[in-house]
């Protein structure tokens, strides 16, 4: 088998998944190449010292991919997701639907569960396994968000929590004797539930999104979308997109992290549909002889996994099936690095020496946001507009 040498590390063409048997049925709707996950790293062109080599015959380098996979599966994966939104928007139900299990009891309104008086963050961790792939999933809920009369600074506890996780990781990372595998509790994705008013983003939404999209990957969704017709959904979506652009809010997938053309095309399709109009349900009903998850109403059954009814499959595919690794990578390479730079600068690092730094005591108020992204990857195509 003659192998070819490519003369330069050109932008990578979309790779097909390694296993010929695709076990995961993707919702191949309007966005079929959702499977490919964009990568954050550019490959560097070979330095002048690296001469081209033509390999004759099979060496076996590609076995390293298999080795990588085995190691990853042995170690297990971690994923931390946070859901933010007012109560009653179906956050808990959505989480249950996403992971097809009872993460926690979804609260039905009016069942005597007292409304929390203050914003509390609740985390729940589960280990789920599918096809010998272990995933340690942590879901953080924010009951009480936006429920008070005066919602001023209601984002502070959330920011504090997110930054607190970064702080934890940073402390682990700067130890002298550190663990082989630092437990990753950083929030990889924050799903923001927008109430289906049908008009446009409320000031609370805008304030929150502005602050949070600099610290964490934010995916806004239109909650309870079954109260809007298809046309209303589209109009609402366009208005939200307009609002986001007007306020320079970059939600995931961020435009500035697109690696190359194929990434951009893929992500543009996703960006076109953000925010997804979703419906959550964790009860099964019989429809046409099939058992589907859905909400039963007097005028029909809203099937959650039906693309014609709502866009839940798109959300699921984005979060889990295609962009999960990318979410983690962006959190690690961009958001965490930004936080780290911010903290190290705060400590007035020693000017010289071998580069080791003095960390000032962690600030009591962890709500300071580092500001616009300071760490940027070099995109091949530098024709993206910046806010």
């Amino acid at each position, binding site marked *: 088998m003659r*192998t070819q*040498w490519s003369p330069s*590390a050109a932008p990578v063409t979309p790779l097909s*998944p390694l296993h010929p048997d695709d*076990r995961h*049925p993707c919702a191949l709707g309007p966005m079929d190449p959702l499977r*490919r*996950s964009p*990568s954050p790293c*550019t*490959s560097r062109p*070979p*330095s002048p*010292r*690296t001469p081209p*080599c033509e*390999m004759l015959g*099979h*060496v*076996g*380098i*590609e*076995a390293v*991919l298999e080795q*990588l*996979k*085995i190691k*990853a599966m*042995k170690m297990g994966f971690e*994923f931390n997701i946070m859901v933010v939104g007012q109560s009653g928007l179906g956050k808990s139900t959505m989480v249950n639907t996403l992971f*097809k*299990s009872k993460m926690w009891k979804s609260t039905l309104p009016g069942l005597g569960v007292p409304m929390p008086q*203050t914003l*509390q963050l609740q985390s729940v*961790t589960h*280990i*789920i396994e*599918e*096809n010998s*792939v272990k*995933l340690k999933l942590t879901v953080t809920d924010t009951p009480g968000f936006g429920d008070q009369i005066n919602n001023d600074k209601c984002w502070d506890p959330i920011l504090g*929590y997110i930054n607190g996780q970064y702080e934890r990781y940073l402390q682990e990372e*700067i*130890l*002298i004797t550190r663990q082989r595998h630092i437990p990753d509790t950083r929030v990889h994705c924050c799903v923001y539930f927008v109430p289906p008013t049908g008009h446009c983003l409320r000031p609370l939404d805008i304030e929150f999104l502005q602050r949070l999209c600099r610290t964490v990957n934010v995916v806004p969704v239109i909650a309870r979308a079954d109260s809007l017709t298809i046309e209303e959904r589209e109009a609402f979506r366009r208005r939200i997109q307009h609002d986001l652009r007007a306020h320079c809010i970059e939600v995931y997938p961020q435009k500035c992290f697109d690696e190359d053309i194929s990434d951009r095309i893929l992500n543009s399709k996703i960006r076109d549909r953000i925010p997804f109009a979703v419906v959550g349900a964790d009860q099964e009903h019989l429809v046409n002889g099939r058992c589907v998850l859905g909400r039963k109403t007097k005028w029909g059954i809203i099937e959650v996994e039906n693309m014609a009814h709502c866009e839940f499959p798109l959300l*699921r*595919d984005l979060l*889990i099936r295609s962009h999960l*690794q990318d979410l983690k*990578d962006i959190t690690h*390479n961009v958001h965490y*690095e930004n936080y780290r730079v911010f903290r*190290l600068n705060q400590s007035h690092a*020693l000017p010289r*020496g*071998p*580069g*080791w*730094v*003095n960390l000032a005591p962690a600030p009591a108020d962890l709500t300071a946001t580092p500001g616009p992204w300071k760490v940027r990857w070099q995109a091949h195509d530098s024709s993206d507009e910046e806010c």
Partner: protein
Amino acid sequence: MAVAVGRPSNEELRNLSLSGHVGFDSLPDQLVNKSTSQGFCFNILCVGETGIGKSTLMDTLFNTKFESDPATHNEPGVRLKARSYELQESNVRLKLTIVDTVGFGDQINKDDSYKPIVEYIDAQFEAYLQEELKIKRSLFNYHDTRIHACLYFIAPTGHSLKSLDLVTMKKLDSKVNIIPIIAKADTIAKNELHKFKSKIMSELVSNGVQIYQFPTDEETVAEINATMSVHLPFAVVGSTEEVKIGNKMAKARQYPWGVVQVENENHCDFVKLREMLIRVNMEDLREQTHSRHYELYRRCKLEEMGFKDTDPDSKPFSLQETYEAKRNEFLGELQKKEEEMRQMFVMRVKEKEAELKEAEKELHEKFDLLKRTHQEEKKKVEDKKKELEEEVNNFQKKKAAAQLLQSQAQQSGAQQTKKDKDKKK
């Protein structure tokens, strides 16, 4: 606004059963896709005497001809030559760096032979550490130059390890994954080879040299790793020339008494080496380098600089205290230096001032002197002028007197002639 984070303790981490297909089993594929587009780095260090077959083995391993000219035996010391290549096989891109020890074992005094090697390895770790400690760092596209595997070429004497080998391996075993191999194995007969191998392994064990252990904790690779470990050190033969065997071409070395086939497991262990190094354990080698050797280096380096974390409870705290202490110390030093410099500066200024003052004084004196001289001269000139004027006056007087006398004389003369005339009449 009070914030309470309800987080269950770790014991409550329970396994949840899924009631349907969620889809995160594509995670390994996502991860692999990402790594594939990033490309892989692999760095091999070949340690062995000149002419033992390092370059040929590399060519054979990777099925390609790396451009390099053979080294001479006249090197004054050991130096390391690193060459990088980009290889691609199907969709995997590998940045391979091969580091060669040029001149190893050629010197008369080989005491310091291991030093350049250790320095090189440490330098790579240091570079990575520097990058990791930077404030604005970019680890995700950092070109990793740390050595992942060290192939130690043992000369095929058939007896035992040389003392140079033992010393070098001992110095390297805590820094890099060592895989010992017997080079030019076609010069050893089969029964001798077996004895040679066991002698080498027992010597390594008795001297406490930690060579790389193929991992046996993973079910998929445990078996093959265990069977292969028995054959350590691998006796390899390298060749890039192809010889016709049967009806196909194979890499081999042709002798008058027969053909040594490189990929024949009965002839040499080359296939085993390739399996172990590349096809089975490449990722493990990289991981061991990062999580064991690099961490050890990092720990030692940081402790050397005076940082330590004490007991686990007060980890962050004591670290900060150490930081503060170090920082204050440094600031104190800075201040002292500043003081010193300031004092020196002041002193210099004073000196300069004194000098200048002196010079000024001198100047003044000179000026005075000049002035006086000038005045004296002026006076002299005036005196002379006066004298001259007097002389001129005198002269004028004399002249006037003379003229008067002359005119008188003329008058009297004229009168006399007039008188004479009168008389004559």
